[in-house]
């Protein structure tokens, strides 16, 4: 239990540090790298909960595919160091109260929740088999609809790219 707790705090700390550094880095590539740290730390947390499949997919999809695309685009555009501007008025007036409200909400939810359940039993939703059964038996129509939506998005992107090439 103690070893698990130590690993949890290390990973959670990494995720928080990565998220803060994502905001405060001045170069887009450094921000993207910080986001990768967050993604990998989250995958580690999933692994700690016993959700092996979700952890691997988290790294493959978010850490790998999506973030590689981010890095590639930043490299292609050769984006430089960002310029700092003064805080916008809206952020100063609405941001701080909203942040306080969010923190209070989270604290209240955590305080109200019952005893902590750790880990996932084998054969439950988080395992590969449980996930597959759920996706392809119970939620097969929402699943297929979502994939159809993604297909439409890909086709839309293709059409937009072709039109630009033609004109």
């Amino acid at each position, binding site marked *: 239990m103690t070893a698990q707790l130590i690993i949890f705090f290390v990973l959670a700390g990494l995720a928080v540090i990565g998220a803060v550094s994502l905001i405060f880095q001045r170069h887009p590539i450094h921000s993207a790298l910080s986001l990768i740290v967050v993604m990998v730390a989250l995958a580690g947390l999933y692994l700690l909960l016993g959700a092996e499949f979700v952890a691997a997919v988290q790294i*493959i999809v978010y850490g*790998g*595919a999506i973030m590689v695309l981010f890095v590639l685009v930043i*490299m*292609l555009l050769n984006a430089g160091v960002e310029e700092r501007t003064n805080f916008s008025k809206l952020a100063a007036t609405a941001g701080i109260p909203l942040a306080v409200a969010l923190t209070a909400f989270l604290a209240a939810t955590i305080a109200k929740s019952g005893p902590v359940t750790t880990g996932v039993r084998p054969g439950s939703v988080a395992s590969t088999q449980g996930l597959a059964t759920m996706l392809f038996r119970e939620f097969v129509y929402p699943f297929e609809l979502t994939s159809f939506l993604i297909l439409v998005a890909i086709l839309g992107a293709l059409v937009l790219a072709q039109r630009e090439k033609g004109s």
Partner: protein
Amino acid sequence: MSAFFAQHAFWIVTILKIIVLLFVILTLDAYLTWFERKVVAHIQSRWGPYRVGPHGLLQPLADGLKFLFKEDPTPAGVDKFVYYLAPFLALSLALTSLAVIPFGPDPIRIFGYETNFGVADLNIGLLILYAITALGVYGVALAGWSSNSKYPLLGGLRSSAQMMSYELALTLSVVGVLLMANSFNLRDIIAAQGRHPNLGLLGWNIFPQILGFFCFFVAAVAETNRAPFDLPEAESELVAGFHTEYASFKFAMFFIAEYTSMVTVSCLCTILFFGGWLSPFPSGPIWGWTHFLPTVFLGALGLYLIWDGFHYETVFGRIVLPGIGTVFCALAALLALSPAVNAFIQGPFWFFSKVLVFLFVYVWVRGTLPRFRYDQLMTIGWKLLLPVSIGNVLLTSFAILKWGAS
């Protein structure tokens, strides 16, 4: 001491295994460079390394020393943190992926603690390998970007695009194998190929999954940035691509990473399509003699080394080569005399033989095929490999639906 060991046996044995695996794999990488130079040289009617040690056997050591003692300049205007991070990322990810590979079937006993032949045995072994591959792009892309130079940047961009395109085919091509084995676990995948022990090599996945193997191997060669897909480091266009600005040991780290991923891919080909540690011969009393093949192989190699050593030009070679030959002959004698050791060595023997064959194919391809053009590369990836691997998934699914798995 023994009480301490009994309490922490798992950790001690795991750390021991990691140290041994690191030692073995780094030595293997070093001699892979020697092997590659020798084979490519002979393909081109040359001798290859010959001066440093008998048959150039000490050449890897000389290269390593050169890498260590060379000056290590940092170019002006680089992004320091990312510039130093990139080679570490490339090397550590390449070495991590080896931890998932199982090398043999039987557990070994270390100080009374039974443990598997391989560092980690995971239920999602293959997915972890793909996760590590997915992160491996960053080593190359960040090296290219952080060097503050145009050739590395172009090389980094090229390789990111190439790796992204081929990752799809790489992932889809093994779905057929996963469907047949019903598992992500690499041990289960090998066990599924041995379901019919009387068939021998006919039971391996290569026969039903020949399309999958074709897509997997082509995509894997592209994913490791090896010839004929080595556009990220095409020396005629980009000097040396993403590692142009790296010198000394930082360059060596990229180099070791590339050779380690070659070994990983060869292990994966062996496991997924060629039966892993299973013997190619059917089991049965008629085929009992095949258990002595490791003995015959080692003995023949040892005898050849002794014979060759006595004729060698230098005195050093006349001492070293027969010495190595004697060691091989002694190992062969040990295998012949001890049935237990012989039975244990069968799995690892076939596994490493198959891996060596794939490593040879890697070098062979590099020595004979010219490099692809960039548009050809993208055409092969998106218009050939992707549709063929999707078709393979459909075919396999329908076949399993009709006739059942096995």
